[in-house]
Every structure is written in C-alpha cells, then in structure tokens.
C-alpha cells in the first residue's frame, strides 16, 4: 500500500531489505488505524460540516440556544414570517386548514375576554355613576372643567404608559415616538434632546465613571419616567400612576428587539429616522392603560346595586306593558258592553283573551269593535250567539231592512208603534208597506204621516174631484139645479180617479164633508151638515157611482172652508185619499 506511506518512508533499498520490510509492516500494524483516523479528521475539517452532520446537531443546537435566551427566536422570526407569507400566497388553503383547529378556541377566548371586560366596565361605570364617590367626581369635573371620563380615569387609574420615546444614544435625536391616543404630545424631539441632556447631566454630576448604568428612573408628581439604555438607542417611557415591575422588563425586551431587528439603520443613523419607521408599532405595544375595576379597593360597594337597578328597570318595563294591556282590556270590555245589540256574558283574561255573549245580526261586528279598542283580534277567542234585540236602535234597523223605505221616508219608533213619515210612491205603499209583515219589536204600523207621491195624471184627476163644491140654499139640504150639474161632474171624475188608482194597484178613499154657514144653533148646523153630505152620497149612488170606501163627516161650522163667505160654507166638499 504505497499510498499509505509517508514520503520519508520510501527508501531506495525498498523491498530488497527484509528488515525494512518488517519495520514497515510493524509500523503499519501499530500506527495504521490512527493515521487513517487522522486523515479522516483532516478531510472533515477541510470540507466543513456536512448536511448529514448538521442534521444530527441542529435540533440539539436549537434547543440549547432557545433555552439560553431569545436571540434565536428573534433571528428566526423574519424568516419564519416571510415563509408563512410565501406559503399563504402560494396555497392559502393549506395554512387555513392547518390553523383551523386553533382559530375556533382562540376566537371563543377573545370573545369571552371582551365580554368579561365589557361587564367589568359596565360594573365600574354604574358604580362610578351612582355612588357618592361618583357624584363627588362629577362635582370635580364640573368644577375643574375636565371631562368626567378623564376624572374617572384619573381616580380609577392604576397606571398608564402615556408616551414612549426611542432616542439615539449618541446625539439625543428622536428616532421614534408613540403616545396614547387622547394625549396631546408636543415637541417630542425637544423632549428627547432634553432627556438626553438630563441623563448626561445626572451621569456627570453623580456618577463620574462612564457606563455605570446612567439614569434609570425619575418621578415628577404622578408621572414616572423609565429609561432603559441600549448601546445605540435608549427607550424612555412616561408612566402615570404605579407601574408594575413587568413594565421595565417589557421595555428592556422591546429595546433588545429593536437593536436586533434594526441594527443596521441604528448603526447608520445620521439624522434621518425614515429607515426606523418600523419601530413605532413596537413602541406602541408598550402603551397601556390599566384601570382598577374597583372591587378590591372598595369593599363597601353594594354588590346588589347594579342588580337592583336592572330589576327596577325590568319592573318598570313589565309594569308599563301590564298597564298598557290592562287599559286595552278595560277599553275593549267597555266598548262591547256599551254596544247596542251586543250582550257580553263572559270576558276572560287567560293566556288568550276570550269573549262570549249574544249578538243581534243587526248589531256592529264585535271584531271591529275590539280592533278599534287596540286589541289584536287574531289572538282573541270569540263566541257570539245570535239573538233579537228589542233596543229601539235595533228594532228600527230591522224595520228599515224589512221595509226598505225610499229616500223621502222617515221611520220613528214610539213605544212599539212604527210611525212612517215623509212621502213615498204609491207602488211602495202597495207592495212593501202592505205586503211585508211587521218586523220583530213592532206591534203596529202608523202610515198616516206619510203622503203618497202621485203620478201627475192621477194627481190632476184627484184635483178635479177636490175642486168641486156642491152648494146649498140657506137652511136647506136639497139639491138645486147647479148642484145637480156639479154632482154629475164629480161622479164622472170619481170614476176616472178610481180607474187610474186601480191601474197603479192603489185604493181610493173619498171623504164627503158637509158644512153650514154660521147662522143658527150648532146642533142644528151639525144635523144640517150631515143631511147635506148624505144627500150628496145618495145622489152619487143614484148616478151609479159607489166608491168602495166612502166616509161621510158632518163638520157643521167647525172647519169652515173660507172665512166670511157664508154661501161657500153651505156646501159639501170632497177629499180623496189614495193608498
């Protein structure tokens, strides 16, 4: 194996020298494995770590470093972020399904926490609004002109990180600045410079040796400024109230992260802060407002108060609803009770309202009445038995339905007599008024008040008859010549009237009224007037005219035809009634 031999081993005498041959074999036996191992090690050193070797070591190395500090995570973060970004860009579905099992619980947790925070804030608002302390704060807000919300915050505040500065260590120039949203932060660049100056001032004045730590914290009234120094930048947080120790750790952590992520822009900083714009979100993460919920600070807080208020509100609302429902109920019942033709027998307010009773067919619809009272009729049970009401309105309504009177006719109920007034056609008289039976509740029909509307032809015939007067001599009941002639005319006219009335289906009634002049006694005049009328009736019968319905009345001097004309009153006159 010549390759295994070192240069100084080869000799000119070589294989011909047996002792040299043995020596070489011996050397090979003793040193061979070691030499091979050396060569392998050399090779490895030259080639560096192979991927296989790295694969062996990587998990352990990562675990070791991650256990020691957070540098590894910080260094890996950008790569991992961009890898995830790339993966999402390429195939969003893969990532979505991978994180799906995590999302649900995370969302539930976030919602639960938000709700818990909301409840706490409602509790504290109610407490602060109604307690004597809350009133005191209101007075304070009114007195100082500061909004109430800020007064509450001032008193309930545990601590609040109001501003965070990132300051270039060497120049004192402001690198970045984050501040609470409602804060009016002015001139952070000047403050950052002054902060640096004060830091130097304190360091120069009290701790001459450099890098002794410098200014870490100072307080002014309710404000405390925390300063954390880094090699290239320092972070300063302005805190109102009592900040916990965790805040310092947080500031240190942020400062380290900034130094790690922005090491190049920090090193190259020469007055232009634009490359450090990405720092601001990191600073903003340090801003925090922590408010006491008040539970542990004020043991006397009546825990029942919010519940009492809620219960009071609920009672008010329910009471209002019940009152409204009750009003609607009483209105509905009153409406039904007062309605003619409706008799409410039973009204019940169970889970569903129910109404039972009697109802005249002519009465108003109970559903409409309930609807008018504001009741939802769809959710109401109703049972109405039909009956006939004798209340005047209902009787009249029924009569109106039965008689169907024309426009000019009025119906009035007097007791159980129905009086008809106005004027109506003969046809209505003939058909409706006579044919229809009396409606329920009406015992008698009084048609005397209604006058017939006569057709013009019949009216002129009637007028013909009624115009005639049969005149007599003084104290006489005998017919003279002119009287006989007039009688003949009347007889003929009466025939015409009867004929015309029969055509229309109506009956004519003739009234003969005998009169006298005022001379003589009343008794004699009464007798004379009767004689005169009966004379005329007899004369009409002689002429073949015998009206079916003739009435004779002896008026004497009681209803004279014309005052002061005795001759005209010694007469018999005619009145024709058509029904």
């Amino acid at each position, binding site marked *: 194996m010549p390759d295994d031999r070192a240069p100084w081993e080869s000799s000119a005498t070589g294989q011909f020298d047996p002792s040299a041959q043995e020596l070489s074999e011996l050397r090979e036996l003793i040193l061979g494995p070691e030499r091979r191992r050396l060569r392998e090690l050399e090779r490895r050193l030259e080639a560096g770590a192979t991927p296989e070797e790295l694969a062996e070591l990587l998990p352990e190395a990562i675990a070791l470093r991650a256990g020691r500090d957070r540098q590894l995570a910080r260094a890996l973060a950008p790569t991992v972020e961009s890898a995830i970004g790339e993966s999402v860009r390429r195939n969003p579905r893969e990532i979505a399904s991978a994180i799906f099992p995590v999302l649900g619980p995370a969302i539930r947790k976030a919602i639960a926490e938000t709700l818990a925070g909301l409840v706490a804030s409602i509790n504290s608002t109610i407490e602060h609004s109604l307690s004597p302390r809350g009133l005191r704060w209101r007075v304070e807000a009114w007195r100082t002109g500061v909004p109430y919300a800020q007064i509450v915050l001032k008193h309930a505040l545990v601590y609040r990180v109001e501003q965070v500065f990132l300051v270039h260590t060497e120049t*004192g120039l402001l690198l970045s600045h984050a501040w609470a949203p409602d804060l009016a932060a002015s001139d952070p660049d000047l403050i950052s410079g002054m902060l640096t100056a004060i830091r130097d001032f304190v360091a120069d004045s009290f701790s001459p040796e450099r890098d002794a730590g410098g200014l870490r914290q100072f307080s002014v009234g309710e404000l405390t400024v925390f300063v954390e120094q880094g090699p290239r930048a320092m972070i300063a947080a302005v805190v109102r109230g009592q900040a916990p120790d965790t805040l310092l750790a947080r500031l240190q952590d942020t400062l380290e992260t900034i130094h790690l992520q922005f090491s190049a822009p920090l090193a190259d900083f020469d007055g232009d802060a634009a490359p450090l714009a990405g720092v601001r979100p990191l600073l903003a993460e340090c801003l925090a407002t922590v408010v006491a919920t008040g539970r542990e600070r004020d043991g006397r807080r009546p825990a029942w108060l919010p519940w009492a208020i809620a219960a009071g509100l609920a009672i008010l609302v329910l009471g209002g609803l019940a009152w409204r429902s009750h009003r609607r109920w009483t209105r509905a019942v009153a409406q039904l009770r007062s309605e003619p033709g409706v008799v409410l027998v039973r009204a019940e307010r169970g889970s569903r309202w129910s109404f039972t009773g009697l109802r005249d067919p002519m009465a108003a619809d109970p559903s409409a009445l309930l609807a008018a009272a504001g009741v939802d009729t769809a959710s109401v049970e109703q049972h109405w038995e039909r009956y006939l009401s004798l209340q005047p309105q209902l009787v009249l309504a029924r009569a109106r339905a039965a008689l169907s009177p024309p426009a000019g006719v009025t119906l009035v109920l007097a007791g159980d007599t129905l009086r008809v007034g106005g004027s109506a056609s003969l046809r209505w008289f003939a058909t409706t008024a006579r044919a229809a039976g009396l409606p329920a509740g009406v015992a008698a029909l009084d048609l005397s008040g209604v006058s017939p509307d006569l057709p013009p032809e019949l009216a002129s015939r009637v007028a013909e008859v009624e115009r005639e007067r049969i005149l007599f001599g003084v104290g006489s009941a005998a017919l003279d010549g002119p009287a006989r002639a007039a009688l003949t005319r009347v007889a003929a006219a009466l025939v015409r009237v009867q004929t015309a009335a029969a055509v229309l289906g109506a009956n004519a009634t003739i009234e003969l009224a005998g009169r006298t002049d005022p001379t003589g006694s009343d008794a004699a005049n009464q007798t004379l007037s009767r004689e005169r009328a009966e004379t005329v009736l007899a004369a009409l019968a002689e002429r073949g005219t015998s009206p079916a319905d003739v009435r004779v009345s002896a008026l004497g001097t009681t209803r004279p035809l014309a005052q002061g004309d005795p001759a005209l009153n010694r007469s018999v006159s005619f009145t024709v009634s058509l029904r």
Partner: protein
Amino acid sequence: MIQKKVCMVGLFGTGKTSLVQRFVHSLFSERYLSTVGVKIDRKQVDLDGTTVALVLWDLAGRDGQDDITTSYLRGAHAILYVADGTRRETCDQLPELRALVREAAGEVPEVVALNKSDLKDRWAITATDEQSLASAFDLVRTSAKTGEGVEDAFQRIARATLATREARP
C-alpha cells in the same frame, strides 16, 4: 425629515441665547441653562426642498472654558460658536475653545457667529483680526438686535451638516 444636532458654544455674555430666541421654537425656559447647563430648541431650515430640523443645544456660557459640559457635545453634527464683536477676548479664545470641543465632538462643521454687529461704535475687532478668524472658521456677522445674518448662519450650518452626510461612504 432629517434631524441634526447642533451645539451652540460661546463664552458668557456673547449673546448666544438672545441670538436665537427670535428664530427658534422653544419649549423650555432659560432656567435650564443655569440649572442643567443646556437648553434645547428647534430651528427648521429649508434647503432646496429638503427640510432640516436643527436641534439646537444651547450650552451655558461660563466664565472659563473648562466649565463646558463636554458630554453635551457628544454626537453633535455641527458646532455654532458665538463670539462678541465688542469683546476681543471672546474671539481670542475661540481656537482654544475649538480644541476643547473637538476633543468631545470630533471634527464636525463649524460656523462662527460674530455677534453684536449693530454696535459699530464699540466694535473691538480689527479688519485684520477678522480676516485671520475667517481663514480659520466659516465666519458670519450677526446681530441679535436687528436679526442680521442669523438666518444665514443657520443656512450655512444646515448645508454643512448635509454635505458631511453625503460625503460619508
């Protein structure tokens, strides 16, 4: 926006503070000068479209040079020296002052404001003195009273800070 730290240095009574107070944005009172030894103001300068915010560190002027707090000079991008034209010694001491400042701040652009230019009758600097000063420094005559030269001084400072920035690799 670009920010630059500029330190104003000068002996007591050269009118440093009154030189700038009309031209700068102040937040802090002059009490800081006597207590902390520095007061910080801002002066915004527009240079051909570039806005430069000069953060001015007004260092308290003391009687002796040794009184200057050198930590305040650290990281300065430029120095504005203020001398009093009516007091010769304020000019004479400039080279020594410069040596002191350079020790702390390094070699950065420097402008000298020769102040109180309105007091012609009490002027104590000869033309020769002024020329020799101008050969060593970028010299501007200023007057806090009339405002003469003040803007010019700040313009020069701002330009100088930007020039060094661009000159850097």
